[in-house]
């Protein structure tokens, strides 16, 4: 199975997406069939790649003597690819209905599908420079999506996102080159710095790690660099749901995982100063995100802050630099993707059907939009970490990994985890209470104009919620698939 399959999986959505504005569909049906066909084909093809093509590699181009652009499927990348290829078709289905009330659909779906290919590129990158290429392209492809509505607010959000992302990417790039020039290898097949990390240039490698951590930390919304995520909440819902809950931010966390496990190995990082810094920052972000979410009353901005906190769960787990930490982080990456996309979709449906964007005026919606709010309640319970659902599993795994590591910062992380669970309950369950139990003086006729969304929107919701419940009860297969990454990341074990 030569590596060409990977190239096809990446290029089909990119070229397909680029064609959408050029073909200039005016009939809605035609555009939908075309876009959905491309997205579905890519997903199916990628899933088949994941099952059969493990380990296949393709050297695309020798850029310079020490750097070349390679694509490779390894278990760590295929987990991210699995998440993306499962969620993208559902999000596209949702986007068809959601975009009916917005203009310039061709451009939107064009860039939306291009982002799919680029995210797969990030997943299948074989070394850091290739990932940097797709990482930058992802930023450029998402800027037009954020500024889609053309309002002043959208432009500001777009510029802010651009500034944060470019700063992050350049900082990471500098870290990469520092490692490259001082003997470390950027290939993902080679684990750890090997003999390059001698005691005297250790300080430089620490600095390079911090540059890469905070560089990729921008996209994974670590505390001081998270400002762009809530402001990007103004983008259309399919963008915020898919990109700012699943694709873009997860690529940031995915990259941090690559830095921690594939460039620096456990031997270098365990107990080192940089690990303490990283753990401290991510633990603080966990608490900061949920507190800000609790204060925010704009529905999507609240969910955006919740994403800020949940991403730091994953970063915290990765920085424990133990096999259980890695698997726990990846588990939460998968589950958080599922849960958060449901919450964002419901927020989008509410805005699409009734135009309400603030959390305070959702009284009585439980009856007006039963399916949406049923899925919302299940997803909120999952995110809060109520046992039978999947959120609990990942939270439990992270806590176990932290306890196994046993350093004081790990205990601080567990405490942060619990505090954020309480606040998550605070800002999510209050919405459910307000929706299902409106106060006595509430007239149901005020919501008669609000009807439940049609099949396009509710089907993805129901499917995803079923996934949340099933994965919560029977996670065996997924945990085994994720467990496969440990031998790759810890060759010594």
């Amino acid at each position, binding site marked *: 199975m030569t590596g060409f399959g990977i190239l096809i999986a990446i290029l089909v959505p990119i070229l397909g997406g680029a064609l959408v504005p050029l073909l200039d569909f005016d009939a809605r049906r035609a555009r939908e069939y075309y876009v959905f066909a491309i997205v579905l084909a890519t997903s199916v093809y990628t899933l088949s790649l994941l099952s059969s093509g493990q380990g296949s590699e393709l050297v695309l181009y020798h850029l310079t003597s020490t750097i070349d652009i390679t694509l490779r499927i390894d278990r760590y990348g295929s987990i991210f690819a699995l998440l993306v290829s499962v969620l993208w078709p559902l999000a596209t289905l949702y986007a068809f209905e959601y975009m009916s009330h917005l203009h310039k659909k061709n451009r939107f779906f064009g860039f939306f599908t291009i982002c799919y290919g680029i995210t797969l590129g990030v997943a299948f990158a074989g070394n850091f420079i290739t990932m940097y290429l797709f990482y930058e392209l992802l930023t450029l492809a998402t800027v037009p999506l954020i500024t889609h509505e053309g309002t002043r607010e959208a432009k500001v959000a777009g510029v802010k996102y651009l500034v944060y992302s470019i700063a992050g990417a350049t900082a990471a790039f500098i870290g990469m080159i520092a490692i490259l020039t001082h003997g470390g290898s950027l290939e993902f097949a080679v684990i750890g710095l090997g003999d390059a990390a001698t005691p005297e240039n250790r300080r430089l490698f620490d600095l390079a790690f911090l540059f890469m951590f905070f560089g990729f930390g921008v996209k994974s919304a670590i505390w001081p660099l998270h400002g762009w995520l809530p402001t990007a909440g103004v983008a259309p819902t399919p963008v915020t749901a898919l990109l700012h809950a699943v694709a873009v931010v997860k690529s940031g966390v995915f990259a941090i995982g690559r830095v921690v496990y594939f460039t620096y190995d456990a031997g270098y990082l365990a107990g080192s100063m940089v690990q303490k810094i990283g753990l401290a920052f991510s633990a603080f972000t966990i608490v900061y995100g949920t507190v800000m979410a609790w204060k925010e009353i704009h529905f999507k901005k609240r969910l955006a802050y919740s994403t800020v906190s949940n991403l730091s769960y994953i970063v915290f787990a990765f920085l424990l630099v133990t096999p259980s930490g890695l698997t726990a982080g990846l588990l939460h990456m998968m589950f958080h993707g599922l849960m958060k996309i449901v919450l964002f979709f419901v927020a989008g449906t509410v805005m699409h059907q009734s135009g309400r964007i603030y959390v305070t005026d959702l009284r009585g919606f439980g009856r007006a939009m039963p399916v949406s709010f049923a899925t919302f309640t299940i997803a909120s*319970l999952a995110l809060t970490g109520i046992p039978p659902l999947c959120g609990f599993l990942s939270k439990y795994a992270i806590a*176990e990994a932290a306890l196994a590591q046993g350093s004081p910062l790990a205990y601080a992380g567990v405490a942060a985890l619990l505090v954020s669970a309480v606040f998550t309950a605070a800002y999510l369950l209050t919405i459910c209470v307000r929706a*299902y139990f409106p106060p006595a003086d509430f007239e149901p006729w005020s919501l008669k104009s609000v009807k439940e969304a049609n099949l396009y929107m509710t089907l993805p919701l129901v499917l995803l919620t079923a996934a949340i419940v099933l994965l919560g009860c029977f996670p065996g297969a997924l945990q085994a698939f994720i467990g496969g990454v440990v031998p790759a990341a810890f060759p010594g074990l």
Partner: protein
Amino acid sequence: MTQLFTLLKISDGLAIQFGADGLGRMFLCLDTVMWILVGIYAFKYKEHMKHTKRFFAFYLLTYLMLAALSMAANYLTMYLCFEFMTLLSMPMVLQDGTPESIAAARKYLMYSIFGATLGLLGFFFSAHYGAGTVFTPGGLLDPAKVAGNESKLLVVAFLSIAGFSAKAGMFPLHAWLPTAHPVAPAPASAVLSGVITKAGVLCILRVMYQVYGASFLAGTWVQKALIVLSLITVFMGSMMAYGEDLLKRRLAYSTVSQVSYVLFGVFTLHPVALLGALLHVIYHSIIKDGLFLGAGAVIFTNHKEYVSQLHGMGKRMPVTFGCFTVCSLGLIGIPPFAGFLSKWYLAAGSLSEGLPVLSWLGPAVLLLSALLTAGYLLPISIHGFFPGEGEKEAEGKEAPFQMLFPMLVLALGVVVFGVFAQPLADALLRIAEAMF
């Protein structure tokens, strides 16, 4: 735990399992009896309510979760049932939909979820340091793993027990109880006070005796701190009840103080005291349900909510006030009635425990609060039956028979269990011994 029924095996360390043991069976019987009686009462009370279908749905779901909780065989299942019980009992609190009830429900939700999260902390540590996962009398901690870090585990034990005691209304996390009960409809507050607080007690019993093990916690600062907290709550609850004019809030404060009687017995880690605690669990449920149903009857028939409005009501509602008086006497601990025996065993257990100061301070506080209980309960009956010349007597008619019947049964229970308590005490002693 005899035989285990595994509902769902998530992964090797995590499974939802159920199993019956003495403690579980006792709590299940208690819940079932109370649920039936209050149910009968609620069928009549529902004319007074809107959204009745919703109320009864959540009424039954809460019962489901309580039953599951008492049958839970491992920490995970217990935590699951505890969380869901909070979520399902919350709609009963905001049944009327008034702004205060919604605020009270949100407060109740937040306190309970905060408590449950501390419980979750306990679960993480027990899963890490524990040998197995199923509750085993004497504790499931693996001595090898625990060797180095007792201090950490003690802190976690204190936090998780304090977390579960939020549901039982112990001092630092009790504030939701006095706000939630008055706004809830009478059957809901009866169930909330009488039975759901006992769920918190059950979780504490499981955690203290069957996760950490009595031997691990005996004599440690955790036990002393918890006893002090429960004594503070006992005293504070009755003081607050004493000054309260709203009848249901007075009874809520009384619940706060009485449940801490039970907790005091549990925290002394002595078989006799534990027997007293278990006995008081049963007696308090019966008595407090009776009191709340009485209060509910008064509100339902004559819309009187404040104690000061009840002067001379006894003549108008003889049966209600009769049962109310019997239950009050039981709660105060007058010998022939139910309350006395449990307080007796509590005092005996604490004295024989031998903790330096607390062994005698405990019974002293219990006695003092018994006086206060008399102080805030007896005036209601006395003014009810003998209003005194000057005041204007309240008019009103007797409650319908369907509401009186449960009150009569409960009053009868108070008398029967007071007099023929021996078989119940023996059964509970066997359960208490099995816990160590």
